[in-house]
């Protein structure tokens, strides 16, 4: 008992000593007002880890910033005082090199590296003037691209004869046109769109399958739901001339046929139970409700998983925090109003409310479907205020009436376009965009969102045309 008390005294003392004890949710927005052209602000905001190791612990940049922030004002600062003081503090340390990597803070901010991490700094590598008999180093190299794209999209290298024939084509324009044709051919292959192909690999962390719980084909020991439906919808939305956003917004299902693999739209599947009026793509699939809602009254796990996997925002890493005033309300009495929890739950809980009527695992009659007054029917005794939980929620600061509106806002957001582009960038280039690739990356996701109208097939052609992909 004494040890326990002592530990809490230590924790409290540490928080008082740290001044502004926790990361401030407004920080990202203010930062981007100050540096609108910073790469961290291209359709997103920097996460808390830009300044913090883990709040309240600061990294080198956060420490330098805190020393200039509202000097003399009593701590803790209110959000308003913090937001008012931050721009001048940011300006005051622009010329400094907080992490000691030889590059000033402001240069790192503009070039997309981390001013608080000495291992993150702008690349200084440059093209060297020597010859290379195999590659056109530092330039877009069509021979290199041809070999690479067949590996990436078809799963195998071309033959020597094919490479020779490619190089014998009359012009670079002709070779480029052939490359476009090959992308379209290879994206029809089983390697790309078939079961366990490249698209399925992209979907694994989103679907998070569990073999023992699989129903239908490849049934597991405790069959609860068929997640191959989720893969089918995902693959359908990523292929041909389909809108990628429908992975979140579809009010239809997708049937998969094999030999060769084909995906087609259907209005019903025996494995899916949510009625058409309440469907929101893979967010409301039988598997998502089984695995991410499970037995929970307020399935924060479902909301955070969708936020992470389709929008690229991991609340556990303090990404995508858009605090809602007056939140969290803690309707299910989980203690999330504590200061340490509230910083994230002020965003997460309003994201979760639209899931209130989506049932997870229960008796077969009620499992994995939309049930009006679900909390009143099944969870009345879970917490004193549980039935006050609204269906209305908030995403990106925008109020939404239900999960379908949530899905619409999410699917139309910059975050969705960035996340989708990042998925394919990682798949084809092998890493998240580096600072020196940032300009091409930003142009690519913006085209995906605007002129390409969320068609992944067009996005793939764009990525292959980048220097990041094609310059060895």
């Amino acid at each position, binding site marked *: 008992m004494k040890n326990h008390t002592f530990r809490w005294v230590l924790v409290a003392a540490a928080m008082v000593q740290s001044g502004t004890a926790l990361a401030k949710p407004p920080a990202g927005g203010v930062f981007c007002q100050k540096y609108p052209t910073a790469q961290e602000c291209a359709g997103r905001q920097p996460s808390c880890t830009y300044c913090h190791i883990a709040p309240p612990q600061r990294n080198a940049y956060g420490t330098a910033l805190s020393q200039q922030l509202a000097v003399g004002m009593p701590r803790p600062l209110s959000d308003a005082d913090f937001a008012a003081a931050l721009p001048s503090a940011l300006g005051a340390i622009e010329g400094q090199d907080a992490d000691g990597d030889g590059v000033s803070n402001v240069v790192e901010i503009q070039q997309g590296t981390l001013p608080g991490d000495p291992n993150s700094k702008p690349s200084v590598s440059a093209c*060297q003037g*020597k010859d290379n008999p195999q590659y056109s180093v530092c330039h877009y190299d069509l021979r290199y691209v041809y070999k690479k794209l067949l590996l990436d999209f078809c799963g195998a290298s071309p033959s020597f004869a094919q490479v020779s024939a490619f190089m014998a084509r009359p012009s670079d324009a002709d070779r480029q046109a052939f490359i476009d044709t090959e992308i379209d051919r290879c994206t029809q292959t089983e390697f790309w769109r078939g079961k366990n192909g490249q698209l399925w690999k992209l979907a694994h962390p989103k679907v998070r399958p569990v073999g023992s719980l699989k129903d239908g084909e490849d049934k597991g020991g405790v069959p609860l739901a068929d997640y191959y439906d989720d893969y089918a919808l995902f693959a359908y939305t990523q292929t041909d001339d389909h809108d990628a956003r429908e992975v979140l917004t579809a009010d239809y299902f997708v049937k998969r046929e094999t030999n060769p693999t084909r995906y087609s739209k259907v209005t019903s599947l025996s494995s899916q139970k949510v009625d058409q009026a309440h469907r929101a793509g893979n967010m409301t699939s039988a598997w998502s409700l089984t695995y991410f809602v499970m037995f929970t009254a307020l399935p924060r796990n479902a909301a955070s998983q969708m936020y992470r996997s389709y929008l690229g925002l991991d609340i556990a890493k303090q990404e995508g925090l858009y605090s809602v005033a007056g939140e969290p309300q803690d309707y299910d009495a989980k203690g999330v109003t504590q200061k340490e929890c509230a910083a994230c739950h002020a965003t997460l809980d309003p994201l979760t409310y639209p899931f209130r009527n989506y049932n997870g695992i229960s008796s077969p009659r009620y499992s994995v479907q939309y049930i009006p007054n679900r909390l009143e029917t099944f969870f009345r005794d879970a917490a004193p205020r549980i039935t006050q939980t609204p269906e209305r929620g908030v995403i990106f600061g925008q109020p939404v009436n239900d999960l379908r509106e949530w899905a619409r806002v999410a699917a139309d957001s910059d975050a969705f376009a960035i996340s989708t582009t990042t998925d394919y960038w990682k798949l084809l280039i092998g890493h998240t965009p580096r600072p020196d690739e940032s300009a091409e990356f930003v142009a690519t996701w913006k085209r995906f969102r605007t002129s390409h109208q969320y068609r992944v097939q067009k996005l793939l052609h764009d990525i292959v045309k980048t220097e990041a992909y094609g310059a060895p």
Partner: protein
Amino acid sequence: MRRNKLLSIAVLCLACNGGTDVPPNPDPVEPPSGPVARSARGNLRFKGPERINADFAAALDLRAESVCTELGLYQCTAMVHNVALGGVDPYGPGLYESSGVTASTTPLVIDRIAWAACTLRVTTDLGTPAAAAIFKDIPQVGKKLANPDGAEVRGLITSLTQRALLRNPYRNEVERYIELAKAIEATGNAEPAKAWMQSVCFAILSSAESIFY
């Protein structure tokens, strides 16, 4: 005129060879005389299980499922060594994404697969010379290469390099592999020709150039 006709026929015959066959044996290429220009991006990628299996199968004209199996039953790349090669295993242990880095056992697995594939191809070709796909028409005296420095041996080196690395061999590579034949004979190996074929094949398939892209 007659010469042109012959040339046309030769070109037509080449076209008949299909996608995986290789053109006739050219002279080896001179290697770069000094350091080559380095990549500024340095974005070399490991092929991973499916691509390695497919490329080894194509290079050696093997069925994809026969490239390498453990106990003759379980495919090396698709099953037994999948994760060591950067694959995923989502349905059982919940490995949804590749680690993104090669593991300490990855080189061992690459060697295992390359050796298995090369052994299968060499054994099959030597066992049924009439149907041999790659290791064919190499004159032997007993179990030795009849002429390690001969055109047939050089042609085989060229063919393997083209099939696996999609380029012609450098002159120094050819000379090195010819030296290897002599070195193997000097060890007293009972089947030096076969051992050399396996070794050249293994050296090319397991090279960094073959398994990264």
